[in-house]
């Protein structure tokens, strides 16, 4: 997805470029935080002990490898979350716009 496509998808095409950039930075933050929330679910105490050892060794590459090894396909996993977040934001944005225009209650949804 290109930046332009993403802007269209999120419904922020009328937003000035500076604000668009801030919103996209925020989006990256939202996605990254959700990814990490999901990652944290997968890590057992034993995993965290090992990770902390690697962190003590300041081995960033090993930390990354270790976490990814807990997933069959980490990149796919993270990309799926990103897609879900974007889709959720886009759908709810549309619902709110519609509610604003028609004076009705928005049909928003929340994926947990």
């Amino acid at each position, binding site marked *: 997805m290109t930046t332009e496509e993403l802007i269209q998808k999120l419904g922020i095409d009328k937003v000035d470029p500076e604000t668009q950039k801030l919103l996209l930075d925020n989006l990256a933050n939202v996605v990254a935080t959700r990814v990490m929330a999901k990652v944290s679910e997968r890590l057992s105490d034993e995993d965290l002990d090992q990770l902390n050892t690697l962190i003590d060794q300041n081995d960033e590459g090993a930390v990354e490898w270790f976490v990814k090894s807990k997933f069959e396909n980490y990149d796919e996993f993270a*990309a799926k979350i*990103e897609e879900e977040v974007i889709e959720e934001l886009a759908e709810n944005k549309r619902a709110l716009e519609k509610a604003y225009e028609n004076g009705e209650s928005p049909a928003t949804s929340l994926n947990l």
Partner: protein
Amino acid sequence: MENNNSNNQEPIPQIVNETNQEDQRLQSTEELGLVPSSIQDNTASEVEHNPVDDFNMDAEAIKQVNETEVQEEIPLAPETVETTAPSQQVDTFPDTKPVAVSTEMEMNQSVEAEKPNQLVTENNSTGEGSIIVNDLLGATTRQIERLEDKIATEKGWGEDVSKLEEELKGHRDMRDYLLGRDYLDKRDNVRDASTGQFKAREDTNNSDEADSNDQAYENLPLLKEDGLLDKWADAEDHNDKTAALDIQDEIFKRIEKENGMDEARKLQLIDIVDKEMNKRRRNVPEQLETATDESSQNAEEIEKQGNDQPVNENPEVENSDEQEIQVPEAPEMEANRRLALDKAIEGYAKAKLHAERLFSGKKDKIEFDSAAAILKTKFNEYMAVIPETMRVADQALANAREANSAEISEIDQQLSELNNRKNSAGEQYDGSLDSQINDLQAKLELANDTKKGIDNEYEQREGARQAYLQSRLMETSKNISQAVIDERIRSNPRMTKFMGFLRSHPKTRLAVSIGLTAAGFVGASTFDAPLVALATVGKGLLRGYGSYDLVQQLGERKAAKNVSQSELKTIDDYLASSSKEAATLRNYKRGGAVIGSILAVGPIAWSLAEGHAPTLNRPTHSSGTHPEHAPAPIEHPSTTSTLDIRPVDGNTLPWDYAMNSHLGNLSSRLPELINNHYGIHFVGNGLSGGQGAIESVTIPGQGTFTDLGHINGAIQFILGGGK
């Protein structure tokens, strides 16, 4: 079928171990403390004969009997009960196939079987107890059938079946023992084995449950020998998560050693152990026990307040004659629903972690489901008011335009009159009107500037609306994930370092959005950092949604042009008319702070008058029943000059310092920092190019500092409650 011990209320005779392997297994069981020493098992494929606990059923035995369909009569209880052919299915234990049980009494009553017959322990007539004993009965019954089949087969081949017969006898003894105890009939009535009478289960449950659990645990050496549960409860009481986790680990390891116990039963056991631990706690925190209930209640209370009365952002403001503030209904409701949503998020995060705990049980799962449902409800309620807030903001802008237009006309008219008088005086004019004319011209200039600003707002309204909506949605989404992470860090110290590592290594690809990076605009992940609050960035990128931006804009203009007190009245007039039913402001700055925090930026207001680039994050709330409202950043000169803030830990980054000092996750407590009422101001480097780091702190009476020591000292002072 034989029923050779039908009246027995005592534990069945001991069965002697026959193999070394079994000795080892028993040793392990005793070490765990789950098996009274008077009870020994027979083979690895047998269930325990312990009348109290259910923890020693052999997994292999269960698996084996599960594979056998029950086709025979099973005697249930002495004399009054006689088993018949299978008529009911018991499905109370995972992975076990149904046990066929029926009673003569029930048959005589011609009641169709809808529920399983369930046996209950004599000490425990709760559903839990009934499941336990029923599982033993089912497993035992199946084992008997398996052995009978096997013996018949072996005999047919002329093999020695003496050991098998001995094994069979043990199982039959066990079955008969179980059948001689209380049980539930298919209508959920409890049959008292001593009287043969049935009574409603609910009549027996409540009073018996606590006592029966106590008695059950009195028989567990685990609780007596090394007091693990007491230590665990003590650790929980003292909020010593590390010790609590270590003890949980130890208990789990012991349970894990129970090779003869299947996973379902282990889970059942740790659930019971967890409940027992909670019973031993001296200070069971209410929020721990009723996180979701409380969340729900608080959310309802908050919303009720929001719907019924104005938000008291700062009592001093409300109580001051000079700060009489009212706000439009919809933005106020949004602010309060936002607080309710935050509370629901907090409850959800807590419940989620509880449900994921090693010792979580059904209650935790139910509470988690409930918390999730509450969160979805509060999310929808919060979202529902946002379009209304936008309409109020639109109306405020329309009102502002109307007032602006009227004021320009009025000033024009006054100027025209003054100029006419001046011109009429001709050469006799003495200059007495010049001052008034100059004042009016200055006011006209201000009004025209405001007109341009309002026109500009209209031009960018569509974009502002888009940004406003997405910023709200993103903020909520982020807050939920963040709350889960924060709660995980709080409940598991092991997580702290990992999350800290990710935070300090923004380039780590783990936390980077892959697609977004590919799109080329995300230079560095901003994981776990507060979102940029668009409402208060620069000139206000949300373009005046809510009165906040207008208030801010006018405030800035006043400072820039150094307008007089008489002009301040004019500004107040703008504000009052911009929201006719809303604002009565006697001080634009404080009013801007209050309205801004309600209308545009929720709980965050980053030193409004100073115009710092703000950040926005989830507010934190106490576990009390009263909602916390983020105070407006109003300075209190009389108190700020005496702040005793000294530098501390100058080599530690603020986030780490807060965590090390048990002040919590700085990200989630940021609102408290920036909304502090001590007049302390922090300046961050922002997130648009920066890392969201705090770069300096200004302490009233001391000055501005950029060193970590002063920054940490100020953090300690604020989050430590002024100490």
